[in-house]
């Protein structure tokens, strides 16, 4: 049969839709029966691929990350990683590649079922002993990025936001953007002070320069990486005023064109030594916008130059503000709502405390009740309305709990008094403890008073003592 043979010849790597079309044509010519049609299945081509960077060690919150990987730290009752995954899932993504520290793959993949998410997680372990940067992590999983997607969503595991990722994706496509970064106004934590010793707030913020109307990114300087003067590139195309902002939070959610990401991560690229995506590769891509195009470009650009050479009817779309087709344009999506990066103790503390009011906004559709049905709260216990109580948590009688977060499987013994505090999973509070404004990640086995403390090691607690503004953690053993 001639039709069959020609079909099999063309099967080598052709697009399914095209194949079907050809097949239909052949069928018309040869009046073949319908049975062949059923065997061709068309699947929608995914346009975006998501990468969650969750291998970060949490350098700015070492007191908490000593015992648990950062991406699994609980925010209220859920692990941090659930938030970006949920964000992706809400946008209709079915799959996400999660870069995790080697050894944590199993725990990470459990997050999905634990939190009732439906997104498929493909965890990619990366060896953290060499302290890889975000760019190194991306290089590590570059082979996992499918050749047929247009854009890659890169999101950090510590992002808590109420943005609709779909809106950001729409913005990205509508502007023909090469790279879109999610930004939001930087807001100071509402709940202060955070427990632990007083620390100076982290001051040097990023500088983002955008065209005030379009939101086009002109310059990105990562925190404090500037001298006495900041030199803006000359933007000849427009007279729009430039907004030089130090009060914008770079949310670490980027939508990048696959081609440009691959270019930047390739071995021979100028970025091959760059370790951080945000601090190095992002400024590099943004600055490339204003550099003259180099001729020796990839195959895509060759094609485009042919198009522009031979097809005079090609009209620039409004996305193309500059003359060249292959030009890079970067935009900042300015989100006005909640957007927090949980990467320091104050932000971690703040988000935990606010989670009671935020949970509907940041996890819409995910039914995680503020008071889990399996929690057993004694009727004589006083638990304030704005407290979060996780699954299997046991609150005994004569306890007083105000504005607290109790994660799952905690146990609060009688006569304990908790206020404005956050308890991690499996924490037991022995009777008579008084805990105020503290972060408790280990069981309090002795009666004590805690004020503004972080507890990660229960052996440091002594009977009847009062602790203030301290971090009670396991002392590292120097042998």
């Amino acid at each position, binding site marked *: 049969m001639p039709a069959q043979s020609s079909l099999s010849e063309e099967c080598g790597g052709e697009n399914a839709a095209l194949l079907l079309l050809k097949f239909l044509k052949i069928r018309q010519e040869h009046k073949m029966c319908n049975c062949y049609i059923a065997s061709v299945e068309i699947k929608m081509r995914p346009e975006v691929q998501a990468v969650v960077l969750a291998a970060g060690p949490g350098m700015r919150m070492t007191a908490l990350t000593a015992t648990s990987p950062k991406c699994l730290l609980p925010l209220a009752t859920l692990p941090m990683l659930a938030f970006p995954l949920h964000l992706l899932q809400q946008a209709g993504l079915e799959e996400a590649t999660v870069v995790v520290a080697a050894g944590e793959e199993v725990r990470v993949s459990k997050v999905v079922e634990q939190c009732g998410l439906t997104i498929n997680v493909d965890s990619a372990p990366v060896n953290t002993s060499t302290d890889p940067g975000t760019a190194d992590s991306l290089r590590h999983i570059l082979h996992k990025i499918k050749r047929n997607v247009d854009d890659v969503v890169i999101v950090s595991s510590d992002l808590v936001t109420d943005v609709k990722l779909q809106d950001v994706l729409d913005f990205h496509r509508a502007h023909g953007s090469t790279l879109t970064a999610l930004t939001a106004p930087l807001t100071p934590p509402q709940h202060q002070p955070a427990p632990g010793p007083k620390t100076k707030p982290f001051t040097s*913020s990023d500088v983002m320069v955008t065209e*005030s109307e379009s939101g086009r990114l002109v310059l990105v300087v990562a925190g404090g990486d500037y001298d006495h*003067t*900041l030199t803006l590139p*000359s933007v000849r195309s427009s007279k729009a005023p430039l*907004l030089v902002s130090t009060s914008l939070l770079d949310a670490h959610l980027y939508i990048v064109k696959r081609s440009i990401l691959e270019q930047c991560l390739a071995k021979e690229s100028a970025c091959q030594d760059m370790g951080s995506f945000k601090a190095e590769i992002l400024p590099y891509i943004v600055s490339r916008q204003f550099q003259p195009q180099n001729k020796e470009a990839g195959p895509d650009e060759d094609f485009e130059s042919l198009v522009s050479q031979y097809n005079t009817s090609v009209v620039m779309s409004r996305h193309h503000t500059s003359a060249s087709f292959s030009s890079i344009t970067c935009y900042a999506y300015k989100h006005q709502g909640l957007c927090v990066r949980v990467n320091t103790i104050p932000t971690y503390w703040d988000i935990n405390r606010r989670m009671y009011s935020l949970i509907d906004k940041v996890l819409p559709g995910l039914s995680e009740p503020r008071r889990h049905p399996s929690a057993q709260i004694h009727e004589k216990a006083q638990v304030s309305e704005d407290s979060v109580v996780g699954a299997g948590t046991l609150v005994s009688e004569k306890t007083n709990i105000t504005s607290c977060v109790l994660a799952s499987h905690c146990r609060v013994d009688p006569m304990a008094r908790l206020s404005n505090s956050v308890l991690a999973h499996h924490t037991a509070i022995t009777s008579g403890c008084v805990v105020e404004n503290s972060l408790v990640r280990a069981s309090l086995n002795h009666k004590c008073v805690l004020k503004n403390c972080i507890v990660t090691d229960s052996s440091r607690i002594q009977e009847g003592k009062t602790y203030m503004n301290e971090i009670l953690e396991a002392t590292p053993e120097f042998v």
Partner: protein
Amino acid sequence: MAPKVEVHEESSILQAVILTECDIDYGTAITHYNPKVLVPLANTPLLDYTLAWLERCGVDEVIVYCRTNTHTDKIKQHCKRFTSRREDCGIKVMVVVSEDCLNLGDAMRDLYSKSLLKDDFILLQGDLVATLDLQDIVAKHKENRLSDKSMIMTCVYVNKPTETTTTTAAMEGEEERGKEVTATLVTAADTGKLLLHRRTRSKSSKISIPTELFQASSDLLTYPAAYDPSLAICSEVVPSLFSDNFDYGSRDSLLRGVIEQEELLGYSIRCQVVQDGYACRASTLQQYQRVSGEVMRREAYPMVCESSLTSHRIRYTYDPFTTTYWEPSAKFTKGNGGTSEVVVGAGTEVDAGVILTCKLFQRGNGGTSEVVVGAGTEVDAGVLLTASVVGDHCTLSDGVRANAAFIMNNVHIKSGCKLDHCYIGDDVVLEEGVVVSSGCVVGPGVRLGPHVTIPPGTQLVSRPPSSTPDHHDDFDETTRVKEADPSICGVKGKAFILLPEETNQDDDDDDEESSDDDGRSSGQDDGDSEDALMMMSDDEHSENEFRREVQESLMNGMSKKSAAENMVLEINASRHAYNVSMEDVLTTVTQGILRAGQKQDGGTEPTWPGINTALKCFVDVLRNYVRKGRDQLLVLNAIEKLMVDSPEFLPATQKILFNLNQTFEILEGEVILHWYKKGGAGTTAFTTIKTSIAQFIEWLEKDSEDEEDSEDEEDSDEECS
């Protein structure tokens, strides 16, 4: 909004101050006879645009501030005419005359001492054509002042795309001037407080922002090049600030002073960048042409050509299809010739059949169609007018072609004349076949022709100005007028060429600016360059130090054969270290190169081969510093002064000049001749030089007659700017 109403009642009078002595002038050929503010733009004096606009914006009292000179009465009369139409209900115009006002700062100090300014007032220049919503701007200013007592001034900028700059022949000076009217602004995004103000120096320069500004405001709004119409809403503090600080000359210096000493003075300045509305200053002739076109294109609506701004009656007939305006009494006679020459498709028949043509896009973006014809003007058939304005009672004979020509009243242009990008004053007569090239200014009363071609950028006046009462003492001294020359102005002609030295007028600002501004361009130093050369710098020591360093760099460069860029870099580094002005650098470099040739040769006697190798080696270095005609003169003066110190160079002078002129093309023959004729730098060595280069000069003179046209073209750039 309760407080706003209260303020409005409190300050019932809104004042405006119009400065008629604008910082930039049109040149003596025009302003000698007519003050700049009374120069008609589309047949309406510039001042009327400003007054009409202020009137419409509800300004109650206008102070027209001018200097005592021959034009004072003219301005007074004009203002009286303007107000007499309005009886007592309209705007009140007061002309304030001062004896010794040199700049904006002086005017402010004078007005302060006369205590004429009561409250917030609007400060503007008389050459501004604008339609901005002043009421809105003033209301915002007052509102801001209520909330922030330290705010003393609101500067108004227009953020408009300036790509519309029509690059036509006469507009070549545009880019150079354009940077003076735009500014780079950095403001606090939330309040609009001005944090940094810098004149835009070049088109594509990168903007650098001091990061310490982040302490003042976390979000900065940066305008890379906002157009500055020199418009400000000032509080009563501003004049007092000017009178406290005698060194404040211009608004720019006030801005700098207030921003730099914010902690000391406790004042701040805000700016409003307006997006809507029109505002443009007809500051230079190039800008004049641009504004004229924009007014004719009705961009300054409701100020349009057909309605008189003084009486508001409709004076012209307007044809929107071709953007032509004509007074009903203008006669357009019918003829049989000429129409065939008219550009196809864009003509419109007017009255008796004369064709006012619009050349649409004939020449890239330069083609425009706007034409205004005044009362009683007779236009013959076959006249081709594009983008031009013709005043009252003119006659334009058959075959006259005018492109972007600004023809005033009572002008008679005979057949076959061609006008291009020029200004023709009152009562001018152009005989048959006169060609006025681009950038020319033909002053009032001039007769030209028949059959002469005026080279580009020439300024012609009817009388030698030295015989007339002058109004700018300092100005006229630097103006040299040649005798009327029939070869230039024609057999029936009566005209004198005005050879303008670069005027001293616009240096007031620049001098102050230069103190902190290393980006000072050589072009702005011109005014005082000659003086600086003669007097030498006070600080002899650093001068010598600098000279020694440059000499050293040059010697090293010669032995190592360094690239010109590196040499320039080295010299500029030394320049910054010793804070030497551009012209001193040029002098030092020129002399240094010649000396390097001498030393390289080994002997004490300079020989031509040694000098020649040095010149060859550093020709690119020298070229880097020689940018315009003035710089060439500096080179010549430098050479002359070298002869004073070391006469042993004398024999080689002729060869040096010849090579700089012919081989390296750094010095233009024209410039050398000009320099030669006016007696060089006037040092003792000139007489000896004169004899030694006589042969070369003679050759040049012969040469220049042959090549006059080509050289004149090059020359025009600097003169028309």
